[in-house]
């Protein structure tokens, strides 16, 4: 309901869902009405276990759906401009994020980071990711989704997604495996899984879908198959030491790439996950920390400024290098700057892994919200286009 309320003001649903979580969590209900909060959301017994389980399932499914939105052919077709946008849009935020976090670690809050290198790698990754659904929606709003510039942004964001999750999975692996050889092994396995799933796995899924279409009920059976693939991918990667989310994400790409997957089927899988599990997940974010208590203006400002400048500069320079005009390049930079749900998922997983503290978690969530909300107006201003619903 809160999401729907925010949507009326053209604010992304996810912001409303986060806000609902903040109201119901320790920030408001827990602080001012602790008895009611304890009655509904007990912190003892099976409730926290159930909530954690639900969060894990939600993240796996959200990443599977995010993977389904990645279209490898768009990446291949957009050629060098998209690749340059994506590569610089990754390298610059990642590099600067890493260096600043490594040399100025205290700027990021009062947490006691056990491994500065791993922490800095995470900051680099957090600065580098983009949120494809928010970007796609913004481009649609402005009516530039199908234009050259729209497709470049989409392709670059898709590529960023793949590399971003490879990086993050490796970092999560590094938390458990401290020796260098194991880190390399984790990275190697991550890349190997991605290649295997996107080639052999993708072909197998594509070949088996017509059979499933004939023999399974629709949409129930098909939904089971798609989520089965997601959980199998997640379980497999978890078993070889890579985080489950990566398995689900890559499985989503392989599944979404099938020529036998129809729009209606995609929609059903998407709606099932985004209407039921996404709200639960984003509300649960508000339960994790006290947002007011952990609001540190310095950390929020640094994360926000660093994220915005690095991403706009990186993706913008990449687009410029790819041959776009100054204004178009800046627009690409702002388009790629939206972080949305992906950044929030990344932050939550890092918090769970004790890689970041609560102050930094709050700062990253705020950064994700701000960058998502500002993408539309900035793109509209730079490209001088009116949003879809305002078109004359």
């Amino acid at each position: 309901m809160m999401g729907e309320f925010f949507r009326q003001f053209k604010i992304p649903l996810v912001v409303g869902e986060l806000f609902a979580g903040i109201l119901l969590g320790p920030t408001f209900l827990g602080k001012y009405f602790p008895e009611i909060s304890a009655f509904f959301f007990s912190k003892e017994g099976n409730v926290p276990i159930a909530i954690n389980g639900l969060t894990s399932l939600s993240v796996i499914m959200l990443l599977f759906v995010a993977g389904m939105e990645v279209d490898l052919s768009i990446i291949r077709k957009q050629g060098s401009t998209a690749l340059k946008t994506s590569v610089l849009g990754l390298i610059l935020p990642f590099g600067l994020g890493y260096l600043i976090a490594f040399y100025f670690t205290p700027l990021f809050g009062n947490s006691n980071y056990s491994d500065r290198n791993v922490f800095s790698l995470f900051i680099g990754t957090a600065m580098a990711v983009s949120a494809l659904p928010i970007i796609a929606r913004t481009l649609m709003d402005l009516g530039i989704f199908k234009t050259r510039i729209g497709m470049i942004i989409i392709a670059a964001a898709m590529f960023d997604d793949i590399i971003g999750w490879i990086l993050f999975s490796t970092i999560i692996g590094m938390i458990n495996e401290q020796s260098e050889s194991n880190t390399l092994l984790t990275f190697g396995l991550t890349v190997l899984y991605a290649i295997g799933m996107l080639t052999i796995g993708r072909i197998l899924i594509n070949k088996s879908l017509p059979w499933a279409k004939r023999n399974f009920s629709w949409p129930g059976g098909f939904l089971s198959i798609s989520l089965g693939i997601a959980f199998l991918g997640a379980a497999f990667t978890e078993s070889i030491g890579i985080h489950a989310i990566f398995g689900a994400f890559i499985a989503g790409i392989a599944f979404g790439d099938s020529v036998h997957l129809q729009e209606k089927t995609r929609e059903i899988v998407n709606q099932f996950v985004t209407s039921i599990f996404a709200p639960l997940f984003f509300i649960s974010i508000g339960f994790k920390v006290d947002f007011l208590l952990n609001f540190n203006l310095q950390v929020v400002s640094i994360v926000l400024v660093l994220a915005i400048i690095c991403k706009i500069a990186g993706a913008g320079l990449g687009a410029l290098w790819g041959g776009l005009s100054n204004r178009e390049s800046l627009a690409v930079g702002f388009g790629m700057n939206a972080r949305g749900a992906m950044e929030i998922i990344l932050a939550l997983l890092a918090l769970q892994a004790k890689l970041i503290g609560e102050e930094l978690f709050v700062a990253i969530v705020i950064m994700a919200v701000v960058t998502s909300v500002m993408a539309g107006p900035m793109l509209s201003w730079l490209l001088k286009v009116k949003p879809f619903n305002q078109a004359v």
Partner: protein
Amino acid sequence: MRNEGNSFAKIAIAVAFSPRCEAMLAEARLLHQRFGAQMFFIHIGKKSLQEEQYLKHLLHRFELDKGNNQVVWEEGEPVETIIALTQQLDIDLLVAGALEKESLIKFVLGDISRQLSRKVKCSMLLLTEPSTHPKGFSHLVVEGTDHPKTENTIAVAVEIANQYLAGTVSIIQESDPGKLALIRSEELKENEAEERREQILKEEDEKLEEILRCTDCGNLKVITERIEGKPGYVISNYARLKNADLLVVNSPDKQLNLLDRVFPHDIEYALADLPCSLLIVHPKEKAI
């Protein structure tokens, strides 16, 4: 913008001394007759008296040794040499025979015809079943995607259909479910999502209608159809199901390589398993 007059004034036939050689030259004669084109017969390999005489004999038999037709005999790497020759001779259409499917090794390396189709800078016709008694094309399936090249591709397809007195031309618009899914954001109400989807499809329909209005289709039976599915795969599948004899598509926007075969898109779906003969229309510089 419109394709005026004859699209194929210079046609090159890639000649290989295979069992299909005779059939390829029979097809060449038909093309020559229909388009009144200057013909070039390109063979890459060492000249041997036996092969030279055999080619001469075939050209004479199919009445292709007259006028300004030429035989070009070169040595070198086949794909690069043929591409260089097509540019040097300003060829409009390159014709080659092709098997329906590639073997696994050929998939990695690419057979000569397919390699040419991925790299050549002129239009290319891949004939899957060349015949010594060619019948031309009776049902053409044409790409109608919203793309700057489509207008020229449709004009060329209509010209071919008119020349060959084809019965039907099916123009297929492909709706990519991946892109449509991105449009259907969870942020939108059901009616808003549907409205946007309809708006996009309507714009595409109007563009196609405008192209067809400006194209002289004569007495041709032109069918337009929208099919949901992966671009390239859908149209290829449609051509197979409808037993079409020629699939006409836009040329790729960039040179294709092994990665495009591993992660196929558009034309690669057709090249992986040719449903029928394939014409890849490459716009002339002045046309786009």
